[in-house]
């Protein structure tokens, strides 16, 4: 029993090393004075300094940030609507198709989504003269993908909410719309927040859809990184990686700590209530 537990522990450690090795490598390398991997030139911040002059990367970052923010908002909006539809209405015409379409982007290879959406947009452009490929088209593609994820997150939370809560609200005088805003929404707000962050990250990181749907002047940061990475090792990419890792780590750790603390407080309160009866 003991040996099996330590074996499990070893396996977990191995997997964690596997998961974190690349990240740690990039962070370390970003401080390497030498641009080559083969030699260690000492600790240096020169690449960080160089990044501040890297117009291409900065422009790409700005664009990606804007698209990601908008994508997160539109994905969450559409995803919540879809989740509510699926949760509240167990039977309606076209439900099977709806479910299929909502789930498919989760697994569909991005090259297919990208190509098909692009071909549609080009056909529309030939007929109506717009839209031009660029910001809006990338946003559209990202929303399509993000909506699928948002629906899953919000729907699973909706299914946890007891139906008697909505009935109680109606019993006490709430009309259906009021029930949503006063009772349902406060209970799913955390899931909506998670969905927002999830779709934001997905959009910020996306290469394939952006590549298919971008136009001249709308090069996102991942596209820039991708073209540089194709060519080989690039110190600028290492730097971007280190910064990303730092930001994400701080955010994730902070969020987890806050959530854990809130959960602990809740548990203490519940225990106190039961003791006092």
């Amino acid at each position, binding site marked *: 029993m003991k040996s099996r537990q330590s074996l499990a522990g070893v396996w977990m450690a191995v997997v964690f090393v596997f998961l974190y090795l690349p990240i740690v490598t990039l962070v370390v390398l970003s401080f390497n004075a030498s641009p080559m991997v083969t030699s260690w030139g000492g600790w240096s911040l020169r690449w960080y300094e160089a990044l501040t002059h890297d117009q291409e990367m900065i422009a790409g970052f700005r664009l990606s940030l804007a698209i990601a923010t908008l994508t997160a908002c539109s994905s969450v909006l559409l995803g919540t609507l879809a989740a509510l539809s699926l949760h509240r209405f167990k039977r309606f015409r076209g439900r099977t198709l709806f479910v299929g379409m909502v789930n498919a982007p989760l697994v569909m290879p991005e090259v297919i989504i990208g190509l098909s959406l692009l071909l*549609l947009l080009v056909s529309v452009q030939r007929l109506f003269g717009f839209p031009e490929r660029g910001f809006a088209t990338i946003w559209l593609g990202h929303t399509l993908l993000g909506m699928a994820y948002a629906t899953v997150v919000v729907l699973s939370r909706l*299914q946890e909410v007891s139906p008697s809560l909505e009935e109680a609200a109606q019993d006490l005088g709430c009309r259906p719309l009021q029930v949503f805003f006063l009772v349902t929404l406060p209970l799913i707000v955390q899931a909506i927040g998670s969905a927002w962050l999830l779709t934001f990250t997905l959009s910020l990181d996306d290469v394939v859809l952006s590549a298919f749907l971008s136009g001249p002047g709308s090069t996102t940061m991942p596209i820039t990184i991708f073209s540089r990475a194709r060519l080989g090792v690039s110190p600028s990419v290492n730097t971007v990686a280190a910064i990303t890792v730092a930001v994400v780590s701080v955010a994730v750790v902070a969020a987890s700590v806050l959530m854990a603390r809130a959960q602990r407080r809740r548990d203490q309160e519940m225990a106190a209530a039961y003791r006092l009866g």
Partner: protein
Amino acid sequence: MSANALARWGARALIGAPMLFLLSFFLLPFLVVFKISVSEMDTVFFRDVLTWADGLITLKVNFANYFILVEDGLYLATYARSLGYAGATALICLLIAYPFAYCIARSPSERRPALLMMVMLPFWTSFLLRIYAWKILLADSGVFNQMLLALGLIAEPIKMMNTPFSLVLGMVYCYIPFMILPLYATLVKMDLSLLEAALDLGATPAQAFWRITVPLSKNGIIAGFMLVFIPCVGEFVIPELLGGPQTLMIGRVLWDEFFGNNDWPMAATVAVVMVLLIIVPLALFNKHQAESHARAGA
């Protein structure tokens, strides 16, 4: 408007908005793709399938691309290879992720959120950057080779980069959270007293595992497998950065046809066949999702 009628219109709007969005930007594009796959490429733009001239409607459908696909061994081999790599990746992910998810599910409940957070953290950092990192690690002059050389374990750098090995490693690395999470979700919900009952009735821990735990986690396994296998078939970025000449996958082919050759009908054809290939697992995944929704929401 009566309350009932208002409710009905409200429902239509609620369902209608996302439905319209999906029909327009998900379903319709597929129809366009199919149409273009049977069109003729005319320099930059494709010729319309339907033409109206002199009061006559002509339907010009060109299945030549499909014939090329089927006849050219290269394409067939690429499809097969993509399915193979995707399957291998999914299988390896399963083998690695299962013990891992199991350990997290069985660890004390206070520690689980922290462990999950540690698993998800790499996922929140850009996957593109992490794939790029493997390039650095696996290159001939990369970190691994340097370490091995320095330690004197090898005389010459091992070729790890641009090989099937690096490709599968990269894909496993990227898709493993998609396998860990559904497995964890299923395993953590499992009733431990079932295992205790099995042990009480004389089963060894190994037997209890294979006969009770694994069958009960079937849903997680299927969900995880689909979540890895299907997107891997059409994966582009990882083969591009970490793969080599032996690892040509269909996502690359599509990209090259479109961006390289500017042959939109061909790219469209490749896409259509790819969708047909994954339609069975896709349908399975869909059915599985619907069933788990029904079970959860019932």
